[in-house]
């Protein structure tokens, strides 16, 4: 892996579900340290795109390059890339049979072969960062949604990834809990983490995004810095979407 190369380069990415063409030749480049917000109506392929990056979905055409390494048929490559690319899910996906601390130390110990003491120290550091170190010994089922999502972010951070993918991290949360998760994400962004966020939180996009990408029907319609994207959208579809999202 070449850390000087662009963090992510997608070229002509194609993805089919049966006969349904989910991604129609997507091309996107994300530089190291860049924060990209992806938005668009449901079913537009946003989630599919970022799930292709860490190969939770296999792509059918085009190339995916992470730090200059091209993802191909090679099994070992996928493991290597997953180590460097963290992911936060809509449904948190914390492991319910492990404590918060165990959730955070599992992957560093198994994948990075970190010692238990080091892994726990790192985990506590990140749990402090997401502001819930006091919940370390609890089980996910005992936490609120917002707390769970913050644990999920800490868990991803514990692998010390170069890139973080967010797949609608606030969509499953009650309104009063969205802010606490977004706060954590803003902090991360300010510290220079490379981030791709699929989200409908336009306030967040305005505040931290270097670029906003609008997708519809498996295509990238528009790609612009937030001030241009919100101030002067070029496409009709973008305008319609923005009026729906911001309208109320």
């Amino acid at each position, binding site marked *: 892996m070449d850390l000087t190369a662009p963090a992510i380069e997608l070229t002509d990415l194609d993805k089919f579900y049966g006969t349904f063409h989910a991604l129609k030749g997507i091309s996107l480049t994300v530089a190291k340290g860049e924060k990209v917000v992806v938005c668009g109506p449901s079913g537009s392929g946003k989630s599919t795109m970022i799930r292709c990056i860490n190969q939770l979905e296999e792509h059918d055409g085009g190339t995916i390059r992470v730090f200059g*390494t091209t993802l*191909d*048929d*090679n*099994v*070992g*490559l*996928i493991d290597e890339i997953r180590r460097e690319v963290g992911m936060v899910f809509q449904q948190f996906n914390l492991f319910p049979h492990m404590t918060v601390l165990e959730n955070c130390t599992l992957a560093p110990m198994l994948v990075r072969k970190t010692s238990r003491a080091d892994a726990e120290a790192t985990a506590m550091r990140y749990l402090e960062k997401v502001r819930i170190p006091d919940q370390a010994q609890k089980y996910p089922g005992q936490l609120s949604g917002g707390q769970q999502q913050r644990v999920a972010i800490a868990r991803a951070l514990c692998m010390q990834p170069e890139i973080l993918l967010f797949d609608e991290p606030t969509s499953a949360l009650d309104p009063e809990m969205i802010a606490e998760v977004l706060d954590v994400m803003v902090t991360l962004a300010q510290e220079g983490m490379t981030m791709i966020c699929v989200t409908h939180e336009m306030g967040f996009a305005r505040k931290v995004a270097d670029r906003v990408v609008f997708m519809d029907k498996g295509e990238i319609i528009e790609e612009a810095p937030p001030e241009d994207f919100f101030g002067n959208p070029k496409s009709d579809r973008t305008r319609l979407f923005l009026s729906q999202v911001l309208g109320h």
Partner: protein
Amino acid sequence: MAAPSIWRSKRFRGAAIQAGFVAVLVALIIGATLTARANLSAQGLTSGFGFLWKSTGWEINFTLMETTTTDPYWWYLLMGLLNTLFMGVIGLAGASILGLIVGLMRSGRNPAARLLGTIYIELFRNLPLILQLFFWYALANALPNPRNSLAFAGALLNARGIYLPGLVIGRGTVALAVLAILVSAALAVWILASRRFRQIEPTRQRRLALCSTAAGLALAALAVVLGHDPSQPWITMPKLAGLKIDGGFRIQPEFYALAIAIMTYGAAYVGEIVRGGFKAVGRGQMEAANALGLSPWQVFSRVRFPLAFRAMLPILINQYVWLIKATTLGIAVGFSDFFMVIASSITHSGQTLEFIAILMGGFLLINFSLAAVLNRLNRAIALKGHQTTGAT
């Protein structure tokens, strides 16, 4: 990064692993077959299915049709299969009826009946079936000898079996009559369950089903009347003649011990399934039915039972397959079911591999067709727009 070797390729790895898996299995099967052939031919046995047409030369103690020692193996196997099915049908029917009663007792409101149902289920479900079978068989054998038979309404009960007053008709006639009833019953079920008959009115549908059942019964009766030899009396009563019983219709201890064991044991399981089914019916449905002013019987027969039945059926299917397999316990007391016929055939003919193949084929056929029929029924009655769940 090293150049990706072919073994690192996901696609190649997938193909190789799958091919390897199949190859290992095939090698195991071929190896076992070859070893077995070598071992068997060392004992002077030829493989192949030609022996099926040779006569057996040994006796089978329970058959539904005329069988002698000169009959070939295939006939014996067929009789065994028929015995298994016969025992299966009787066992399943008995277990279902008794199980329904127990289940209703368990899910009713009367605490005394509930207690009785609970005791029944805990007792019969927590003891090995074969232990229960041995007990019933020992009980049957401990009955008085024929001289001191217990008499009850024309029937005689002794260690040799149960002797009932019997109709004098040939076995072929019985087979014909049973066939007529079975076909008509299947037809009736099809009329009631098939979607093709959804268009016509329910009353007409029910009348049609009734007609088909009646026609089947009439055909059966006709077969019996026509098949009866006029020179013989219609009914024979069992009578003591010397040391044994003459006349009547004998049920062997092996048969009824196994039937009782399967029925009572199966009923405990069916009872639990029935209770689970009734528990799955939503309280709201019952309240709605009561609020509409239906009588208790109508609530039960039109709302509660139909909904509960849909919840039970998928689990019942598994239980039925299990009970059919339990008929193989016949070998423990000497009832010649399919498995026992196979086991005796192996000892007498030595055609081990062939018989094991037939055994597997027979049970796969019985169980897959039973499951297929019941699954079909399940799909036919499943609530439209709901997912058909395997278990609740």
